[in-house]
């Protein structure tokens, strides 16, 4: 069954495209030092200081910033942190959502009441303003606070969908059979229910990762991140704050956004493919 899903997933054109794009980004992140011509904080070489705000040339593929950093190198290195924050946040968020969803959905009762109550509140509070407000109260600037804030505000949606799916699966007859057979609750949760919601868990992971990548970029763009870190978001922050637009320096603010969008698209494609595969009405024949 899971093997079948994987097979369907790989043979799905949208999923394949998504996997390819993501693989390229992972490749870039891992081999950044080999791909990037310069260190991201390097503003000179043996020929002397780099020109400030240079236009793209063979020496600087995407020109240089106001401080003379090579933008192409920063873009390559930026992949590392941006991807890391996105995926780590995605994992944490999915983990929280899965735990709470399984807990509330399977056990029901008071536990479920409490979980869904908090869940409903977090659902109506728009996350971005909440992220901004919390981040502005936190005075430490860095990657981990960002991950914390994004995870703290991002779990609600996933919890809701996983919980409601668990509620449905729980009512399926094979769960009742397991109870009648004398199976222990934990075994029921992990052996009977979990394998049946895997595609939803994956979808939650993809969705929260996209949200995290965009959320990170947003926070950094506003200046609530660690502005000395090299990420796509801080690149946009520096571009904006140094009036890249007015200098007509499209090579400065265009590429980071494009990378964010491409990464997001890859997750969106995989997500869409999962939807197609697991929704029988779309998959049908």
């Amino acid at each position, binding site marked *: 069954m899971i093997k079948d899903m994987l097979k369907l997933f790989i043979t799905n054109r949208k999923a394949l495209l998504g996997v390819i794009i993501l693989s390229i980004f992972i490749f870039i992140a891992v081999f950044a030092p080999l791909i990037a011509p310069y260190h991201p904080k390097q503003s000179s070489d043996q020929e002397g200081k780099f020109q400030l705000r240079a236009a793209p040339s063979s020496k600087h593929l995407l020109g240089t910033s106001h401080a003379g950093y090579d933008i192409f190198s920063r873009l390559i290195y930026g992949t590392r942190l941006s991807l890391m924050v996105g995926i780590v946040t995605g994992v944490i968020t999915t983990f929280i959502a899965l735990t709470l969803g399984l807990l509330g959905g399977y056990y029901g009762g008071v536990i479920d009441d409490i979980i869904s109550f908090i869940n409903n509140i977090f659902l109506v509070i728009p996350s971005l303003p909440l992220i901004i407000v919390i981040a*502005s109260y936190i005075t430490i600037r860095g990657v981990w606070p960002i991950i914390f804030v994004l995870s703290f505000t991002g779990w609600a949606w996933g919890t809701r969908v996983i919980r409601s799916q668990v509620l449905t699966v729980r009512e399926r007859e094979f769960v009742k059979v397991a109870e009648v057979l004398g199976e222990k609750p934990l075994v029921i949760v992990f052996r009977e229910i979990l394998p049946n919601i895997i595609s939803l868990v994956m979808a939650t992971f993809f969705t929260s990762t996209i949200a995290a990548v965009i959320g990170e970029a947003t926070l950094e763009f506003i*200046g609530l991140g660690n502005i000395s870190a090299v990420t796509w978001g801080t690149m946009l922050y520096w571009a904006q704050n140094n009036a890249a637009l007015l200098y007509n320096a499209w090579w400065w603010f265009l590429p980071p*956004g494009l990378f964010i969008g491409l990464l997001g698209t890859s997750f969106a494609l995989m997500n869409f493919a999962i939807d197609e595969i697991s929704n029988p009405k779309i998959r049908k024949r």
Partner: protein
Amino acid sequence: MKYFLRRILWLVFAIFIALTINFMLPRLMPGDPATILIQRLEGLEPAAINAVRNAFGLETDKNIIIQYKDYLIDLLHGDLGISISHYPTPVWNVLRKALPWTIGLMGISTVLSFLFGTLIGITLAWKRKSRISDAVLGLFLFIRSFPYFWFGLILVYFLAFNNPIFPLGGATKVGLMPADGWEYIKSILYHGILPGMTITITSMGYWILTIRNNMINVLAEDYITVAKAKGLSMSRIKNLYAAKNAILPSVSGFAMALGFVIGGSLLTEMVFSYPGVGFMLYQAVQQQDYPLLQAIFLFIILGVLFSNFIADIVIMILDPRVRDGAKK
């Protein structure tokens, strides 16, 4: 009616929770951000420092329950504290100027994006066999993956900077006053086009996707087959039988979507220096104007809750099952 009362009750209750969260947040923060801040804000007038202390609940002589009571009473009187960046203007007076701009821009864009998104989504599902549908869907999936603010930047770059068709930012031409009448309104519309477009286009993807999926599900229902068999016109089947059923779940999903839209709008305002709540939030963050920050957050939550309430009422009007309490 029972449904209506339940929704009202939830609205009141949620507002109460929102107020409480707003009260608790600064008090829950680890470390002692207020002291750090006050040190950083050195040179500020004592009254302004007091405003910060108030926002963080540093009136150590009072216990938290009394603070909470005072906070609620102050709110009832419309007292949101004193703005630090606009010292000594009360927060409410600062915020009041920004509200109409945001409500106008965001309200119109949200409605437009819902309308267009729904129409496109319905069409994509109706013609889901065609390659064009696939391409359009792909395009919006792609657009949706970009940060809103970046999309705004691109629009500014191409449509305002490189080809100065639209203004770079602001809400009206500098110097124009409401007294200028038609000129003033024209200027508002002209300045609103780019930010409006940003919000509309970027948030449209969500509606397109959900409506399309709902619609595909609905089209597989028996009652669509019955409608076809009865010989009804295609437009009647599409609109009355399929679309109406497909829209229902996404109206009830409005609650969740609105959060995204609001987030996007805030950022859009920042990019366009649009004098609304979003831009003000940005400035408040930059200038660490915590009383203002808190008030803005509160208003956003209230706005969302209220919009949700409206969506609930719309659902009630559209879906007879909800009206009878037969569903949810």
